[in-house]
């Protein structure tokens, strides 16, 4: 029987790539390949023709505030097609500031308001201060049972709007952020302020997406033979131990 085909789109790979973000798409490709699926990873960016149909997973990473505005400017060409994608249940992961794209608007620290995709009912207002630091997240059901390790690197400010938040910042851990709920979820769209290669650093999160995309549960850890997964897992515990 021929292996199932899974198509991944890494959107704005060269613009929204603040800090090793490329690894999120790459590690998922690797995991799906390990499980025996045919995987195609497409990279698209500003000015490219993009046909959103046929993708099973779309990833957007984080960028500088100026890059983010350029990203929204370009993405507005595909607004309807992209929203249609999400409505039909395609898995989308947006890390760092890119999840702000799905709200109503972003007001930058100079007071300029930028219109966003308007899919979800929240607004982001940025301030000139910078928020950076290690953090530990807990995730709400139905997502993950495990703690997640992350790194926040965003403009200060706040989000307003009554929407479902998938993640909770563990107070005191890492850089000592205050407890708060964060991120966005809608159908199979998931967004968070966590930046960097979080699917590498958090094997449970990588497994969640791999399970969903393949429609099968992963083999138990003890039955896996790949060293990558072992290193990835040990790295996760090293960081978690350090951040407690």
């Amino acid at each position, binding site marked *: 029987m021929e292996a199932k085909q899974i198509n991944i789109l890494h959107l704005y790979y*060269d*613009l929204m*790539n*603040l*800090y*090793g973000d*490329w*690894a999120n798409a*790459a*590690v998922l490709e*690797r995991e799906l390949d390990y499980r025996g699926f045919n995987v195609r990873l497409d990279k698209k960016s*500003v*000015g490219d023709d993009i046909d959103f149909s046929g993708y099973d997973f779309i990833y957007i990473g984080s960028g*500088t*505030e*100026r*890059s983010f*505005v*350029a990203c929204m400017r370009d993405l507005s060409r595909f607004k309807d097609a992209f929203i249609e994608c999400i409505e039909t249940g395609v898995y989308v992961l947006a890390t760092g500031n890119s999840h702000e794209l799905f709200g109503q608007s972003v007001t930058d620290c100079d007071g300029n308001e930028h219109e966003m995709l308007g899919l979800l009912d929240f607004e982001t207002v940025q301030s000139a201060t*910078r928020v*950076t*630091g*290690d953090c530990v997240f807990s995730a709400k059901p139905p997502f993950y049972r495990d703690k997640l*390790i992350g*790194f926040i*690197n965003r403009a200060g400010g706040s989000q307003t709007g009554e929407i479902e938040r998938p993640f909770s910042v563990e107070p005191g851990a*890492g*850089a000592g952020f205050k407890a708060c709920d964060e991120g966005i979820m809608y159908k199979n769209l998931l967004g968070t302020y966590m*930046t*960097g*290669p979080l699917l*590498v*650093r958090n094997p449970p999160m990588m497994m969640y997406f791999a399970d969903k995309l393949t429609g099968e549960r992963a083999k138990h850890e003890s039955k896996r033979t790949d*060293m*990558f997964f072992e*290193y*990835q897992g*040990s*790295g996760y515990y*090293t*960081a978690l131990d*350090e*951040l407690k």
Partner: protein
Amino acid sequence: MKVFFAVIICRILYFTGKCIGRGSSLPGKVVLRFFPDVLGRLSLPGIIIAVTGSNGKTSVTELIVHALKESGKSVAWNHEGSNQTEGVATLLLRSASLGGKVRSDAVVMECDERYAKKIFEKVHPTVLLITNLCRDQLTRNGHHEFVADCLRAAIDVLGDGVKLVLNADDPYVSALVLPKTAQGDGSGVLYFGVGSSGDGVSPAAGMYDDGAYCPVCKARMTYNYRIMGHFGDYKCNGCGFSRNKPDIDLTTQENRPLVFMYNFCAAVAVCNAVGIDASDAAESLKGYELKGGRTVSLKIGERKGFLFISKHENSFAYDCSLSRIIEQKKPCTVIVLVDSISRKYYTSETSWLWDINFDLLSDENVKNIVLAGRYANELAARFKMSGVSRDKVGLVFDLSGLRDFIEENTSGDVYAVTCFSDRVKLFKALKR
């Protein structure tokens, strides 16, 4: 009287600190707490040079000081490397007489890029050098465009009374004076750069390309040639923002590593900005070996090599060091040690490992790679996702076994890449 007491307190704390091996920022910190405006009351020399940017600050500061001294000038500078407001305060106060006069002909102060504005509010440099803007310590700095905004604010504090010395090859640095200075006008700005090697082709940018989009308008940029990372001869396809022709480009005069050449050209440009002839400055720096250099000799038994000190959380520094290793063109073993990520603040952040172009180590001369330290697992995962052959990679978690592992399992010269924070551990582990 204020100045008198400030100088006395600073001197006492500085010498006490020196005796007990403490850093040089504390005296300035204490004095500024009691006399916050004291720096403004000092009588400073006519030449005050500030050096800032992501990479190369310490090295280029040392070069400038050497060239100034060679030209007959006496210089006060923060040679201990304390480059935040308190460190600069210590430098000025310990160099001042009891009456508050800094008697040297010139002051050279290395300034942290995030603290530049605060420092300039207290001390106005006459020359400001900005070396480059790269991804560096994102845990502390956010990102390079955020740092660029901090530097823009710092330049605004200075007004027109400063001569800017900028890296022409780095679009983020050159964009700092836009739109204030008309493109190509360059009044009050001196540019340095490194010429093309003549290959004309852009080398691969590595794991990311910060030169892909214009820092001014975010349209795509094209390069006639690249030097390294986002340095090169760039032009924006949208707004037309492009590289300024460097006033100082001495690439042809010395056959030294690229990083040194940038520091060399920057130092010569600064000397030129304070009235020293560029060729005299270049001559005085010829063959100069940095005392605070980042290349340190290594020896394991009969095997020789180097440690290339590379800041953790700085993929640019790592990429430069890996390139240096390949340039040696010798069969070798490479140690990458990540044990504690920062010595100054607390972090367990490893995203930067994914920005480093470890594929460079696919080179056939690299026979073995040893990944060591607390983060060896993360390094191993990173290497698994690179093009480097699995067969040549070994892991050492416990550093006490590092030397035995290297002697028993590896061959060739030994090159190590790690940060200041892990340097002592490395030398301890390699000692028998």
